[in-house]
């Protein structure tokens, strides 16, 4: 049964590869990247181990590995739905099969291969001390097991949480969590440069956490610290055992109670009753409802608070803080570049209606444009206040508006040109959609590049204004920026609509194929 699950994973993998060349290239690159990065770390472990004592580095490295595996899938990498327990619920699979199968399958992905190869380095670091090497051969695999189990357990436990109505709330929670994890981490890296002392200090406490305990075993053996060894061993063994229990329990609940969370009730027409009485209004109301009710939209805006915090942490009160406003504007505006993909096949409603496609474009633009403008405004005012650069208010507000307008325009064009596989409505909003990610990244990059090009004049003026403290240049930046933004928006909407006039059924066919 385990072998069948592995072969299922492999088939899904091959299936996605066959769908496009980009997929294949992306997968091969990812695999090579994983192998070479892991290999590099392995060699570093060996070489470092030959030269000096790496006990602290091993603990810290291992702890980071486990931490990333445990928390990472929730916030960054997305859940792999191949082993969604509820999909497999109808088959006669035991929980054990499911657990072993999906653990091993996870290890065979790029992340798993990187981990295994890199973990080799954690073992090789002890090559000069035979007794410790033996302990490493026990401890490191134990640590890797903990990492994999941690990842599977958290994703399984999180799955019911992120679905349905509560998903939205959880998205917010995760955003806050992410911010609170990322921010101190950056602060740490920023304020204290990494020295052997800090690593040793971190290792000292990390070795007593579930994340690092297993990796401390060889150091204990090498040092002859038998009491510490016993303590670490208890933690290192108890952690995976508890993870297995936790995972089992969440699996049991999901396998036996496959009901879907109800989304609750709405009232009357909702926003639909308050928008302009026209097709644009209908599109606008529908989009606004989705921004609130569909967790997939909320997660696409998670990066807004994250961006602000990261910028704030990195820049302090310096002038760099001022980029936060335009960054927020860009995030909001660009969010509709996947709007049609997010509609999925429900997009047929627009195709079947006797619509002018400019109506479709404007409805979507306004739905995020207005909240985006507010967010940009608030962020910009906050950064101006914190950096105490009120003289730059015209420049920054102007460039913020310009960025929002231009990215809305570009996104309106891009979303009409291409659609990528995204999570389907009702799917896990944090789920990783197999396929399309390479093309999506490419379009994101091109979009950013295009934005940079069209906004270059305004950006240059703004930077000059800030550096020289010239209010006049600031006004110039605002005027030039807004003019450019308006032009890009109009052009983007116009050509996006024209493209949909010509190719909307083809987009629908693509959407149906995902």
């Amino acid at each position, binding site marked *: 049964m385990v072998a069948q699950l592995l072969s299922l994973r492999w088939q899904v993998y091959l299936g996605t590869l066959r769908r496009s060349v980009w997929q294949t290239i992306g997968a091969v690159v990812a695999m090579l990247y994983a192998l070479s990065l892991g290999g590099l770390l392995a060699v570093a472990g060996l070489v470092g181990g030959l030269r000096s004592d790496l006990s602290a580095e091993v603990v810290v490295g291992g702890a980071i590995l486990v931490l990333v595996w445990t928390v990472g899938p929730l916030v960054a990498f997305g859940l792999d739905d191949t082993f969604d327990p509820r999909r497999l619920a109808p088959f006669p699979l035991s929980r054990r099969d499911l657990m072993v199968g999906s653990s091993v399958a996870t290890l065979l992905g790029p992340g798993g291969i990187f981990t295994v190869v890199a973990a080799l380095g954690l073992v090789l670091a002890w090559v000069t001390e035979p007794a410790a090497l033996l302990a490493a051969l026990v401890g490191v695999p134990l640590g890797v097991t903990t990492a994999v189990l941690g990842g599977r357990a958290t994703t399984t436990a999180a799955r019911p949480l992120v679905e349905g109505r509560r998903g939205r709330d959880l998205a917010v929670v995760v955003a806050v969590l992410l911010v609170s994890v990322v921010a101190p981490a950056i602060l740490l890296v920023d304020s204290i440069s990494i020295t052997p002392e800090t690593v040793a200090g971190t290792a000292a406490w990390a070795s007593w956490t579930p994340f690092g305990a297993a990796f401390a075993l060889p150091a204990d053996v090498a040092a002859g610290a038998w009491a510490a060894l016993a303590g670490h061993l208890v933690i290192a063994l108890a952690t995976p055992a508890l993870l297995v229990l936790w995972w089992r329990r969440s699996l049991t609940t999901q396998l036996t109670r496959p009901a879907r969370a109800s989304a609750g009730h709405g009232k009357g027409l909702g926003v*639909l009753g308050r928008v302009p009485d026209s097709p644009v209004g209908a599109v606008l109301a529908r989009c606004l409802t989705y921004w609130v009710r569909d967790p997939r939209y909320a997660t696409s805006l998670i990066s807004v608070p994250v961006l602000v915090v990261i910028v704030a942490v990195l820049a302090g009160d310096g002038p760099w803080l001022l980029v936060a406003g335009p960054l927020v504007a860009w995030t909001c505006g660009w969010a509709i570049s996947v709007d049609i993909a997010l509609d999925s096949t429900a997009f047929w409603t627009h195709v*079947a209606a006797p619509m002018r496609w400019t109506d479709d474009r404007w409805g979507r633009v306004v739905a995020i444009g207005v909240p985006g403008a507010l967010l940009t405004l608030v962020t910009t005012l906050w950064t101006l206040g914190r950096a105490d650069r009120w003289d730059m208010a015209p420049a920054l507000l102007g460039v913020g508006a310009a960025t929002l307008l231009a990215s809305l325009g570009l996104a309106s064009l891009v979303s009409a040109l291409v659609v990528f596989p995204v999570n389907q409505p009702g799917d896990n909003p944090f789920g990783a959609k197999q396929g399309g990610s390479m093309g999506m990244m490419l379009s994101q990059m091109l979009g950013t590049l295009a934005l940079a090009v069209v906004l270059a004049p305004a950006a240059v003026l703004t930077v000059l204004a800030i550096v020289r403290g010239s209010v006049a240049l600031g006004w110039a930046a605002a005027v030039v920026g807004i003019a450019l933004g308006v032009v890009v928006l109009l052009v983007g909407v116009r050509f996006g609509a024209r493209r949909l006039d010509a190719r909307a059924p083809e987009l629908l066919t693509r959407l149906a194929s995902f």
Partner: protein
Amino acid sequence: MSEARASVVSDDGMRPSPGGELQMDVALGLEGLRKTFGEKVAVERVDLAVPAGSFFGLVGPNGAGKTTTLSMATGLLRPDAGRVTVRGTDLWADPVTAKSLLGVLPDGVRLFDRLTGLQLVVHAGMLHRLPRTTARERAEALLRALDLEADANTFVADYSAGMTKKIALACALVHAPRLLVLDEPFEAVDPVSAASIRAILADYVGTGGTVVVSSHVMDLVERMCDHVAVLAAGRVLAAGTVDEVRGGASLEDRFVELVGGRRSGEGLEWLHSS
């Protein structure tokens, strides 16, 4: 085989007379429709003329190309070749005019299901340029008629399959189209609701509307429709009034005869429980 088909089609009385003038008003005209997906030919060639005011059934086995044909007929899928006219307007040349005459219920696609039932129907109406108040009145009437009143404020995502079909039908009806194209409208719908839907559709046809439904339930088509076309392997095997097509036999027998390929249960003995 192609000769047999030609004779059936020419008997259906829907072709232009030799003189060239149309014998009847055509609500939906399909001419030489063709669609391939890569190597696979989904619709080889479909010519159909749906008379205005008819209740037209499109029947065919699984994979016959019914959904593909109806998608092309409603502007959702671009044909590789051929022409679609909706009451004389070329759909693919003038989609806005043609689509305003059309009400569509496609099969196997999503709805904007984070809206409530009421919101979804009003949204559909507004997309079709109905004033909001009209859209709302009609939506409420439709929800009542389709027995969805109690779930008007429930999100469509929480609807059952049958309820979803019904709400999609309401969306197709809300702008009072001249022509309704419904792909498998009765699938998963309970008998009571099916009866009310049939009544609504019959009433609609009685007052001059035209309905095209696809189905693989022959009984239903035989009872409900006045015209029928049999589609298999992407071709029209027979078309005409129900009586013409079934030629004295039951529609189901005639269908199996036309389509062929009935398999016996041989090789499935292991399925017998004793």
